[in-house]
């Protein structure tokens, strides 16, 4: 009898794991049915035949702060150093659909992201940047997505890039700003859903290279959910949007499924995350094929962006975060991501500095150019452990998805607060694991030190941003054609009362330099205010 002592082990999501795996752990494994080939059904191995040999993943670092001029400078710096996709981070004022001169806003303009109140600001951010060659992600709340996306489109058109050519993504996710972040002035879920789906519908018909939604389970995960809950919620939300569009009887599934996209987290458990990315592709394929009968291969392919998990970064021994980030980038790449944002080691303290963001870009470039991981698609495919774990994650994610569907699906779990309670429970559980030491975090609950060994520079957003930008938006209101703005907002009001798509009216309003706050005010005046059901 062996006397070896073996400790029990679990994945980051609590799935028990054995010491090794063999073919016996894959009893019903059918290579053609479970895996296929890269670029072929069921897409477990990746959505393109040639994967990174055709095109490397996009290096897309989410950033923005202060004034549009300051953000333009940072965007240029990143682009000059090899960033291959842009991503705009907006401040909490924008996320709430407010302008910098709103009386409820003090000292927060441009602090957590850039402030954009009109088309003019969008023009400044992208001045001198090749938007015809590089795609952009417009990341803000679902609530502010239509207006801010319209500003990006209007900017592109002014620059001579037509709607047929403009390339990028809007986040436009239902939960990021109600489950994961609070909002102070919000409307009820059915109306938010209407605006989101209007944008998807309009983009699918008019802006073919734009992804008008990126379901962002990254944020659900950051709020404490585990790997399979992440996928369960993700697909519940996607189904909610799809059903809303199909209910309208205007488009077929293959008319809009090709523009849907996703944004996942790369957390600490290396193999579990890779398994999750692979499971997500197979699940999406089944959902599209079996539930919706989609035919277009672009409808069946799960396109996703990965962000390394900011919540795994801590202030203790702060440079250690760059190691966490590099491992998470590796998991994302081995999992077949289309674009990656490597967070920066200093984010527990501040927005990234020029140096820390450079390291994030270089981390990705070293993975792309030095490690040779980009040579072979799905290099872990066929590993007994990875295939077993992919199956496990898929099984548990379907169970969680079904649980949410049984509770009534997207609108019901969102409106009732069920999903908020679920996220709260998951967050408490994760904290308990850290506090008890069950989950080890180097520098936090093991290998702790007295005092900090690393002193790092701190980024400070422009403290004058509120004054500068409040003044700028007041000046804009003097200078623009206010009669035109009034007509556009009145038209938006009228259209919003009908079932017509709101996007053409939003486009007209932003082209007349209506501000974000003014556009959101139209909807605030029509739709009921909603307090997010976070009971705490």
């Amino acid at each position: 009898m062996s006397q070896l002592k073996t400790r029990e082990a679990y994945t980051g999501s609590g799935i028990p794991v054995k010491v090794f795996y063999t073919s016996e752990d894959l009893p019903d494994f059918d290579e053609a049915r479970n895996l296929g080939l890269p670029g072929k059904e069921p897409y477990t191995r990746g959505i393109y035949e040639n994967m990174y040999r055709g095109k490397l993943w996009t290096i897309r670092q989410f950033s923005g702060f202060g004034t549009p001029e300051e953000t333009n400078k940072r965007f240029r710096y990143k682009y000059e150093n090899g960033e291959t996709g842009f991503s705009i981070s907006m401040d909490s004022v924008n996320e709430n659909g407010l302008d910098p001169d709103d009386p409820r806003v003090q000292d927060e303009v441009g602090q957590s992201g850039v402030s954009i109140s009109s088309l003019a600001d969008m023009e400044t951010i992208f001045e001198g940047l090749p938007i015809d060659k590089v795609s952009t992600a417009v990341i803000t709340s679902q609530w502010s997505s239509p207006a801010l996306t319209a500003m990006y489109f209007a900017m592109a058109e002014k620059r001579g890039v037509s709607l047929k050519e403009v390339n990028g993504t809007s986040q436009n996710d239902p939960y990021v700003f109600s489950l994961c972040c609070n909002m102070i002035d919000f409307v009820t879920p059915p109306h938010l859903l209407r605006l989101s789906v209007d944008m998807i519908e309009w983009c699918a018909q008019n802006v073919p290279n734009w992804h008008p939604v990126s379901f962002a389970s990254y944020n659900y995960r950051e709020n404490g959910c585990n790997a399979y809950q992440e996928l369960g919620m993700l697909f519940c939300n996607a189904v909610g949007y799809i059903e809303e569009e199909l209910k309208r009887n205007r488009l077929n599934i293959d008319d809009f499924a090709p523009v849907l996209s996703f944004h996942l987290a790369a957390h600490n458990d290396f193999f579990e995350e890779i398994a999750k990315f692979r499971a997500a592709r197979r699940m999406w394929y089944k959902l599209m094929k079996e539930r919706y009968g989609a035919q277009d291969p672009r409808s069946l392919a799960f396109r996703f962006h990965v962000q390394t998990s900011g919540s795994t970064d801590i202030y203790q021994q702060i440079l250690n975060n760059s190691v966490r980030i590099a491992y998470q980038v590796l998991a994302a790449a081995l999992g077949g991501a289309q674009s990656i944002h490597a967070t920066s080691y200093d984010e527990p303290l501040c927005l990234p500095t020029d140096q820390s963001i450079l390291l994030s870009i270089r981390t990705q470039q070293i993975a792309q150019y030095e490690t040779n991981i980009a040579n072979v698609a799905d290099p872990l495919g066929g590993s007994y452990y990875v295939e077993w774990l992919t199956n496990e994650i898929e099984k548990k994610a379907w169970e969680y998805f079904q649980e949410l569907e049984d509770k009534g699906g997207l609108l019901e779990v969102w409106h009732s607060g069920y999903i908020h309670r679920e996220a709260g429970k998951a967050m408490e559980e994760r904290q308990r694991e850290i506090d008890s030491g069950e989950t080890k975090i180097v520098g936090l609950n093991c290998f702790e030190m007295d005092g900090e060994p690393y002193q790092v520079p701190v980024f400070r957003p422009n403290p004058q941003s509120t004054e500068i930008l409040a003044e700028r938006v007041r000046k804009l209101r003097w200078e623009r054609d206010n009669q035109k703005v009034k007509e556009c907002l009145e038209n938006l009001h009228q259209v919003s009362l009908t079932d017509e798509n709101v996007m053409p009216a939003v486009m007209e309003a932003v082209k007349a330099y209506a501000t974000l706050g003014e556009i959101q005010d139209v909807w605030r005046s029509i739709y009921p205010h909603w307090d997010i059901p976070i009971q705490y």
Partner: protein
Amino acid sequence: MERKVRVLMAKPGIDGHWRGAKVVTTALRNAGMEVIFGGNMSPEAIAKVAVQEDVDVVGLSILAAGHMKLTQRVLQALQEESAEDIVVMVGGTIPQEDIPPLKEMGVDGVFPPGSKTDLIVKLVKEKMSQKKARA
């Protein structure tokens, strides 16, 4: 029966990143304290509610770079309500070099992301027993 320690947990301003505030709320409740979760509130409202609810501690969670100004405004509002004896703690994305000036301002404890929740509980208890010794 001894009165439970009463805490108001709030996010001054409109930034919506709530996880930290919720985690600390849970930790303090598990330690037997009564926590009012205020969510996003203006600095003035925080001071008013703190006084109305007769809390011992105000916890501020700030993750959007405005911690110096926002904390200053909460402390000032507390002063205007003659409630300087309320213990004030700040958590969030706070650079190390900002911790001494925050303490000089009158903040009793600062906790960046990754702080152990038992240290937060310990500090609240210490501050409460110091307060009792003074009374």
